[in-house]
C-alpha cells in the first residue's frame, strides 16, 4: 500500500500572497507585483502560477518577471473571465492565493546561451516572454543577438510602454513593433506580427525562436517561419490550455499525450510533430 504519513503537502492548497503593487496597464490588462511573506517563489522563466481569489476561483497565469527581479514577482493579467475580472479589482494590500510555480517545459535558458534569440510576441503573449527577455537583459553577455517582435491588436492594447520605449532605445537588442489596426496617433508598422518576420530574415538562421500569443497566431507564425527552412528544434511555442489543477490530475490541459501544466507550457516545435492537437 502507498505510504501515507498523514502530513503530505496538499497540492491544492494555495499560499497567501500580498499585492504590493497593482496598476491598470490599459483597459483590459492589470499589472500585479506580488510578495509571499518573505518567501521567494523560486521559479524559472516560462513557469506559471495558479492565482486564487477566494470564492471566485483560480486561474493559471504565467509569471511575467525574470527570476533576477528581486522585489517579489510580477504578473500581467488580461481581463477575460470571472477570476480575471475579479483580479482587476485588486489593490495594493489585498491578499490572494498562489500555488506553484508549475511547468517543467520552460524557456531554454541554458541551451540558448551563446546563441542568437528571437522573440515573437502577440498581444498579452508579451507577458510570459518578458520573463525570459528580462532574464537575458540581466545576463546580456551570455547571449548572442536578441531580436524582439511584438504585434498588438491596436495602440490602446499595448502595455509596458515605458519598457518598450527603453527596448527601442537600446543598441544591444533589436525591437520591432506593429499593430493590426493603426490610428492617427500611431506612426509605426501596421499589420499582423508575421509582417515583421521578413524584416529580420538575417537573424533567423541559427537563432532560438520563441513564440507566444493567442491560439490563432501560432499557425500563421509557423507558416511564415517555414519559408526560411529553419530546424524545428530551434523553435519553441508557449501554449495555453484550460487548466483546473495545474498538477497533472484533472485532465483539462491535455494535448494528445502531454499535460501542458506538467510537460509545458513551453514546447519545442520538433516535439509537437507527435502532438497533432497542439496547433
Amino acid at each position, binding site marked *: *500500500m502507498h505510504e501515507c504519513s498523514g502530513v503530505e503537502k496538499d497540492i*491544492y492548497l494555495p499560499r497567501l500572497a500580498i499585492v504590493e503593487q497593482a496598476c491598470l496597464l490599459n483597459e483590459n490588462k492589470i499589472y500585479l507585483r506580488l510578495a509571499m511573506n518573505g518567501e521567494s517563489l523560486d521559479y524559472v522563466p516560462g513557469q506559471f502560477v495558479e492565482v486564487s481569489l477566494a470564492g471566485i476561483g483560480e486561474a493559471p497565469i504565467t509569471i511575467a518577471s525574470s527570476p533576477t527581479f528581486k522585489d517579489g514577482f510580477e504578473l500581467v493579467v488580461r481581463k477575460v473571465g470571472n477570476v480575471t475580472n475579479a483580479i482587476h479589482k485588486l489593490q495594493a494590500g489585498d491578499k490572494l*492565493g498562489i500555488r506553484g510555480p508549475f511547468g517543467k517545459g520552460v524557456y531554454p535558458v541554458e541551451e540558448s546561451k551563446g546563441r542568437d534569440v528571437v522573440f515573437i510576441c502577440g498581444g498579452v503573449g508579451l507577458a510570459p516572454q518578458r520573463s525570459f527577455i528580462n532574464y537575458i537583459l540581466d545576463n546580456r553577455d551570455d547571449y548572442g543577438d536578441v531580436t524582439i517582435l511584438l504585434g498588438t491588436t491596436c495602440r490602446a492594447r499595448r502595455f509596458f510602454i515605458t519598457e518598450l520605449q527603453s527596448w527601442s532605445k537600446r543598441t544591444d537588442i533589436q525591437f520591432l513593433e506593429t499593430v493590426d489596426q493603426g490610428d492617427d496617433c500611431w506612426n509605426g508598422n501596421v499589420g499582423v506580427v508575421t509582417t515583421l518576420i521578413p524584416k529580420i530574415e538575417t537573424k533567423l538562421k541559427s537563432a532560438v525562436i520563441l513564440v507566444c500569443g493567442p*491560439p490563432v497566431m501560432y499557425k500563421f507564425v509557423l507558416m511564415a517561419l517555414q519559408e526560411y527552412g529553419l530546424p524545428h528544434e530551434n523553435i519553441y511555442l508557449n501554449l495555453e490550455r*484550460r487548466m483546473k489543477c495545474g498538477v497533472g*490530475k484533472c485532465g483539462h490541459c491535455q*494535448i494528445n*499525450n502531454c499535460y501542458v501544466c506538467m510537460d509545458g507550457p513551453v514546447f519545442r516545435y520538433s516535439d509537437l510533430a507527435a502532438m497533432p492537437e497542439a496547433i
Partner: protein
Amino acid sequence: MKLKKLTKNAFTNFIDSLIRTQSVIGVRAKGDRFDFGPLDSAKDLRLDYDVTLQPPKKFFLPPSETLLTYQTGAGYKSEYDDMEFILVGVHPYDMIAINQIDKLFSQDNYDAHYMRRRNNATIIACDVVTPSKNVFASSMGTAVVRQGYDILVTDIGDVYVVEAATEKGEKLLSKAKGAVDVSKQDLDKRQRVWDQNSLQLNKHKLKCDPSYLPKLLDMENAYTHPVWEEKGELCFACGSCNQVCPTCYCFNVQDDVNWDLKTGRRDRFWDGCMLDGFTKVAGGHEFRKHKADRFKHRLYRKAKYVPAKIGGEMACVGCGRCVSACLTDIANPVNVYNRLIEDLGTNL
C-alpha cells in the same frame, strides 16, 4: 499472505460482525441491477452480481468533495475525509482500475485527498461469478487480479477461498470465525475459476493482444481514420461513458461562498472529456470543439496516453459499463479498435 476457506454462512456471519463495528460498503441489488452502497446486513450482500451500475471509484474520488475551506483574508485550509471503511465485492477489473488510479494520483504530485480515502479503505475483492452482458475483461487481461486488494474471495462452489494479501487483510480475516485451512484441491478449484473467467468474460472479443493497442494507435492512418467521424456524428456528448468508467477521473474545481460572505470552500466535481466546454479557455477558444475529436481523444487516452504513464497497462479494463450506458451505442472500444485492426491490415 494467508489462505483460508470459509463456508458461505461463515462468511455472511463474518460480514455481519464487521457491520456491527465498522462502516461496510458492499454490492447490493438495485432492482434487477446492482450497485455499491452501505450494508445494514450481510444478507443484502450479493457477491454473485454481474456488474455494478457505477464503479467503486466514487468512494475514493467522490462525484463532489470539498478540497479546501477558506476565510477571506485569512487563507485556506485543507479538508480531508478520514472515515475508515470496508469495501466488499470489488471485481478484478474494478480492482485493477483502482490500482491504476492509485498510481496516477500518487505519482508526480501526490493527491492527498484521494490517497487518504484510499488508505482508509480495506478492500475485499471477489472473483466474478456471473459474467455481465457487455464485459470484455478477458480481452483486456483484467478478468483476474492478484494484487491491490486486502482480501480476495473466490467462490469455488459450496465454499469461498479467502486470501488475505496484506497485513490489514490478515488482521481483518483473523476475526472470521470458522476459517479453516485450504487444501490443494480448493486451490485447484480456484485456479479453474480464474482460468474460466480469463476465457469467458469476453462478450466483445478484441482482435489483438491489448499491449499492441498503443502501436496500433500510433499508426499514421489510425489518427485520421473515418471511424472517428462516424462515431462523433452519432455522439450526444452526454458524458455517460465518462461517468460509468472505472478509469475516468477528470475533475472540475469550483469555488463557493457561504451566506456570511466571509467563508466558503473550493470543491472538486467529476468532469468528462466528452462534454462540451471541457477544453474551453477564457476568450472562448475551444481546443476540442468537434465531438469526433473528443471521442478520439478518449479512446487514445485509454489505449495509449495513460498506459504510457502506468508501465504499459491498458487504461480500459473491459468492464463494459460504457457499452451499456451509451445512449447511441457508439462507446464500445472493442468495435473501434477492431475496425482499426481490420482496416489498417496490421500484423498481429
